[in-house]
């Protein structure tokens, strides 16, 4: 332990990055060496002085604007999936395989076993009904053809080999709290092909909005569903959480600012009544009160602002 070592480590000491034993030695040295003690005091003064340029908190307006801009860009951005992703990851994937031969062997074995089991189940007889946790699933005898994978004519005969996928419609019954039912409802909420199914699923899900996953599905529906009826239903399910869940509040504020449907916007502004004193909500209301095209939104925003004491 000497003065050179102390000077080299003074930065680590003032930023609390020295290990306990080194810190002990460091402090013992500076208590005996006046020059090193002065060096530490100067370093601490420097550290304290640097706080004259503090880290500013992000203004709510800047945050809201950044989020909205990002959201718009995300709508036009696709993830690196499929072939591109495979090409991109190939080296890393090989690297991982190389480093984990036991894991590789395990994956291959599981894959082989899974494939064999699936084949066996497909070839085996199907029972007419199966009990699953969360309800009873009924399988009908009839199945639909989902898609044709390939058509291969046999060159030596007039036979043709066709590979196709089947879809077996199933029915499941249970209460909304059953995990399987809830999982299906969440999937139905994302069913882009059928807005009626989405509306029905969101209607049921609104009764379970205390669940985080359900609330996320409602927020998702409010933000992205093309059907205003579904968005209104989602808003209805979220109304109890505007005050306590900041994600819900943000989604409602976004609906108020950008939804294309006047009914959804009117409902959104009504939901924001309990949180109108919130700074980010106030900023949005101030913008809407001055510039919104909708007379009702403008007047309602003004009314909220007038009835809320200005704290800033």
């Amino acid at each position, binding site marked *: 332990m000497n003065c050179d070592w102390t000077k*080299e480590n003074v*930065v*680590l000491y003032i*930023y609390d*990055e020295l290990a306990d034993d080194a810190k002990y030695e460091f402090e013992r040295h500076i208590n005996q060496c006046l020059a090193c003690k002065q060096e530490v005091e*100067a*370093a601490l003064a*420097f*550290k304290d*002085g*640097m706080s*004259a*340029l*503090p*880290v*500013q*908190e*992000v203004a709510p307006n*800047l*945050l809201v*604007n*950044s*989020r909205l*801009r*990002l*959201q718009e*860009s*995300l709508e036009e*951005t*696709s*993830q*690196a*999936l499929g072939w591109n*992703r495979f090409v*991109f*990851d190939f080296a*890393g994937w090989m690297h*991982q395989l190389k480093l984990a031969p036991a894991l590789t062997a395990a994956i291959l074995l599981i894959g082989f076993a899974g494939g064999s089991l699936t084949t066996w189940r497909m070839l085996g007889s199907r029972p007419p009904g199966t009990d699953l946790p969360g309800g009873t699933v009924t399988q009908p005898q009839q199945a639909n053809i989902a898609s044709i994978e390939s058509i291969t004519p046999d060159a030596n005969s007039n036979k043709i080999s066709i590979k196709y996928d089947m879809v077996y419609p199933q029915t499941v019954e249970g209460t909304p709290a059953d995990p399987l039912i809830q999982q299906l409802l969440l999937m139905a909420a994302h069913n882009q092909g059928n807005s009626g199914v989405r509306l029905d699923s969101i209607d049921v899900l609104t009764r379970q909005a205390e669940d*985080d996953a359900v609330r*996320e*599905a409602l*927020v*998702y529906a409010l*933000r*992205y569903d093309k059907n205003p009826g579904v968005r209104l239903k989602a808003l209805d399910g979220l109304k109890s959480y505007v005050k306590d869940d900041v*994600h819900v509040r*943000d989604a409602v504020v976004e609906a108020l600012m950008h939804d294309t449907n006047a009914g959804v916007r009117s409902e959104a502004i009504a939901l924001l009544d309990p949180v109108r004193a919130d700074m980010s909500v106030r900023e949005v209301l101030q913008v809407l009160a001055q510039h919104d095209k909708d007379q009702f939104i403008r007047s309602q925003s003004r009314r909220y602002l007038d009835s809320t004491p200005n704290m800033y």
Partner: protein
Amino acid sequence: MNQPQGRRNDSDLIRASQRGDRGAFETLVRQYDQAVLRLALHLTGSEADAQDIYQEAFLKAYRHIGNFRFECSFYTWIYRIVTNLCLDHLRKRQTRREDSHVMTDSSGQEVDLLERVSDDRSGANPERDLMRRELGAKIALALTRLTPRERMVFELKHYQGLRLRTIGEMLNTTEETAKNTLFRATQKLRGVLGSMR
């Protein structure tokens, strides 16, 4: 900087995002975006640049979240993206030799740091407040004398309060290198600020 509190389960959100669930990704974004914006804002001194970095970082994360392999926390991963973008920004700015004591806000207005640096501790002492503002402007100027990497390490350690080990992970380097960089950065700053007095 402390990691954002009250996070929902990141792993579930990441897995959902990897399956293409944009809602899950946005939830993930909201756990970290304030901290990201704060870092970019302090480093660039410009709201417009900070917004650009924010935007580019999360779009990059969205495009490549399929490659996230849970080898580090999402927090480290997103910060690695952000710090790389900030480093690029600092390098470009260094080439342009901009003075960072003049900042630009989102409307493009230039704001002198003297106006931005506030003093919560000075109370009703205007003289002390002015001195502190002047010191703030000097510090901002002194920070521009660091190399981009020194600036980044100093920012993450001094202003964001991260451990050197984490900083090393974020910058794809070792803890030892991060230590040496921090040492150089503080030496330079002390020298520059000392000569300004």
